[in-house]
């Protein structure tokens, strides 16, 4: 027997939700101590698959074996007892408890009146972090930690519960490049300890760096599993989407166009300092920088949500004094937030209601009322202009895919007829096909004369959309480049230096 028995084996696993075939006859193996990537676009069945393994969803057909033994029916408690730990995208931590309490929580379950010793909990917490070779304040509240450290807390919790297989759902979605690097180091340690790690992702860059094998899902089916050495990023992207995607540099020289927005010496204590730049009509300007570099804070000030302590903002030569975001909207500045789910749209409300929010003033007739027919017509027009795929205007926004939600937010602001559009990390959590769609919308808006600011930490994204790129770090603008003048790789090195 040369072939070692895998830790986890799925055979013919299928899952139906009502009329939707979420998983279709999946055969899949995870070996002991391997790093395995499970990739696919949003809605391809990745989440359903890990939930089946975690015992959250019972498969409609097929079998799940752990070390050769059939483990169905599986419930979350049994899966954990078998050493299967899932680190969900939301991390499932307790923000009100300390790091030590979070890591030790599983040891504190069981009999209701069983005594819980704090010292023991701290010990478990310290051990968990030591295995990751990571120092964290055990007494810090999780709500005070940055996302990357919360994630480490979640991983340590999995280890404390004797994990043998850790599935991480989109672990890198909210991390900066440097933090991703640190996470990969941790994964390497886990592998040394014989713990298998499954990365579930729709982003491609880090897949190639750490995995031994990669499995691609598409539309609920397994496309295949390959050793990482045999596939490159482009091939994986093609396998995921079924289409070839080509990003090319679109930068144009806009220096002849008139200046639209001018920012001089803008500062806000603790957030950004002495920021000066100009945005020309029809230009797409990228602002790159890590999370915490002040890029989002700058955007919020330009949008009137916070006030600069010094410096000036001028639009079309007229100085602006923005006291609130209403002033900004009136002046012609629109902002689409990074966190589209919580800030940009009201998820349970209908598509029409979401589109109309920013247009209320325009829609009111002379009695101050909004005629329903006009509302509907306006909403329908925007859906058509941005090519949003929707089941119906009265459906809640949460029924749409990530990319379409993003377009709804975009439409909501475009409908106010802005001169300057600020997009903060516009494609976070959006799959490849929809990303391309959003890039096209941005290019079209710029052609119509709008000035667009794209804030991002994905170099590929700013290269694919921007005419000019500003580099921000620790609250200051420290460099300016034109896409194509340096390679994507070179630019990344500068940002993450």
């Amino acid at each position, binding site marked *: 027997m040369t072939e070692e028995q895998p830790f986890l084996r799925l055979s013919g696993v299928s899952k139906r939700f009502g009329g939707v075939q979420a998983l279709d006859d999946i055969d899949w193996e995870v070996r002991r101590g391997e790093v395995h990537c499970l990739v696919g676009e949003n809605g391809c069945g990745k989440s359903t698959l890990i939930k089946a393994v975690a015992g959250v969803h019972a498969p409609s057909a097929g079998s799940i074996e752990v070390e050769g033994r059939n483990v169905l029916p599986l419930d979350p408690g049994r899966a*954990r007892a078998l050493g299967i730990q899932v680190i969900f995208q939301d991390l499932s931590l*307790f923000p009100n408890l300390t790091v030590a309490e979070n890591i030790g*929580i599983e040891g504190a379950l069981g009999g209701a*009146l069983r005594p*819980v010793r704090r010292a023991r909990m701290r010990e478990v917490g310290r051990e968990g972090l030591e295995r990751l070779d990571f120092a964290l304040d055990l007494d810090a509240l999780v709500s*005070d930690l940055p996302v990357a450290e919360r994630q480490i807390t979640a991983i340590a919790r999995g280890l404390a519960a004797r994990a043998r297989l850790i599935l991480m759902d989109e672990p890198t979605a909210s991390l900066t490049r440097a933090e991703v690097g640190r996470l990969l180091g941790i994964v390497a340690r886990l592998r040394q300890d014989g713990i298998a790690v499954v990365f579930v992702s729709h982003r491609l860059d880090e897949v190639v760096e750490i995995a031994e094998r990669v499995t691609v899902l598409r539309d609920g089916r397994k496309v295949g599993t390959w050793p990482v050495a045999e596939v490159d990023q482009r091939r994986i992207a093609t396998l995921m989407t079924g289409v070839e995607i080509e990003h090319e540099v679109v930068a144009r020289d806009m220096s002849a166009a008139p200046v639209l927005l001018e920012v001089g010496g803008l500062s806000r204590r603790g957030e950004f300092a002495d920021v000066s730049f100009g945005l020309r009509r029809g230009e797409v300007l990228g602002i790159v920088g890590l999370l915490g570099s002040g890029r989002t804070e700058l955007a919020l000030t330009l949008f009137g949500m916070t006030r600069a302590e010094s410096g000036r903002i001028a639009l079309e030569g007229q100085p602006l004094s923005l006291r609130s975001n209403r002033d900004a909207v009136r002046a012609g500045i629109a902002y689409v937030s990074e966190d589209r789910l919580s800030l940009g749209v009201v998820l349970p409300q209908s598509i029409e209601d979401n589109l109309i929010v920013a247009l209320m003033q325009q829609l009111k007739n002379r009695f101050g009322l909004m005629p329903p027919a006009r509302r509907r017509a306006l909403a329908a027009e925007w859906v058509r202009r941005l090519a949003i795929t929707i089941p119906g205007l009265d459906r809640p926004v949460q029924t749409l895919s990530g990319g379409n939600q993003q377009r709804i937010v975009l439409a909501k602001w475009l409908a106010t007829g802005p001169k300057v559009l600020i997009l903060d990390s516009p494609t976070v959590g959006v799959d490849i096909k929809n990303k391309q769609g959003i890039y096209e919308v941005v290019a079209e808006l710029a052609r119509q004369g709008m000035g667009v600011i794209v804030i991002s930490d994905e170099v590929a994204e700013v290269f694919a959309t921007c005419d000019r790129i500003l580099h921000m770090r620790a609250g200051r603008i420290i460099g300016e480049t034109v896409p194509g003048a340096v390679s994507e790789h070179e630019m990344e090195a500068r940002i993450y230096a």
Partner: protein
Amino acid sequence: MPERAHAGLARLRRRPEIWLLLVILLVGGVFGVTARGFLTLPNVIDLLETYSVQAIIAMGLFVVLVSGGIDISFAATASVAQYCAALLASRVGLPVPLVIAAGLGVGVALGCLNALLIHYFRITSIIATIAMMSVSFSLLMYFSEGRSVYDLPDWWTSRVVFLRAELASGDIVRITLPIVLMAVVALVTWALMTRTSLGRQLYAMGGNPEAARRIGIGTGRLTFFAYGYLGLLAAVGGMVQAHRVGESVPNAMVGTELAILSAAVLGGASLTGGIGTVPGVLLGIVLLAILQNGLNLLGVSPYFFQIVIGITILVSTSITVLSSRRGRRLRQLGGAPAHG
């Protein structure tokens, strides 16, 4: 090491209990100087006894708040439990243990009914308990026709003194049953919430119910425990209240809901769940008690006291929110170079 000490100090500064203690010392000092008789042992002991009922019930409410819920019906529960026990004792003449057990049983049952509505029928806790308050209190008034029970048996109304001391001034101070019960309830609640698995699970559920479910915490069980425990302590509070005043008046406890809730919130218990401590809630009660008593001794109108309560709550909760917000903003930039 100094950095660690600094972090410890910073953490201490963010604890509402510390601020509350400072405010209490300040207010206590001011009244000690201005109000004659305020800072005397008899007055302090008297205050302890007066607020023992509120403190006992607040311990139960605290557990519900930590679990992520809220309960408005506890005063009605206390009244119903008290009245039922009073009827059983005076009209039926049941023996002592049975009367006490019946009173506590009524409290637990009403608490569990809340839990049932919240857990199985998925009614928001504030709605469910407002409805329950209305129903159980109205039933009480309907069947009692508002009549008080004056002829409580002696075992219920006679004073139980654990410790008695005569001061040099000639004043006599007594440590009585309500004070001892309050201490026991506070201690038990504290141990339960900080030293047992159950307590950890309640904090976890209050902090993130979905995550609690995912790691296999039985949230239904915990909901029943939290509301049942509050029902139990409401019944204890109700019976102690009758013990102190010597009669059972159906509507005597009504109106204490907000005072008790305010004390818990003042003491740092969060209405969104998962946050709060027993000492904090006790300090909240203490602050309300000395404010009321001190202003009373100064001859200030009771209406003015209500204004002071309202303003104290607004100020203390705003301070908590503002200090945590400032911390977040500074952290953002402070954390930036760490990525590099």
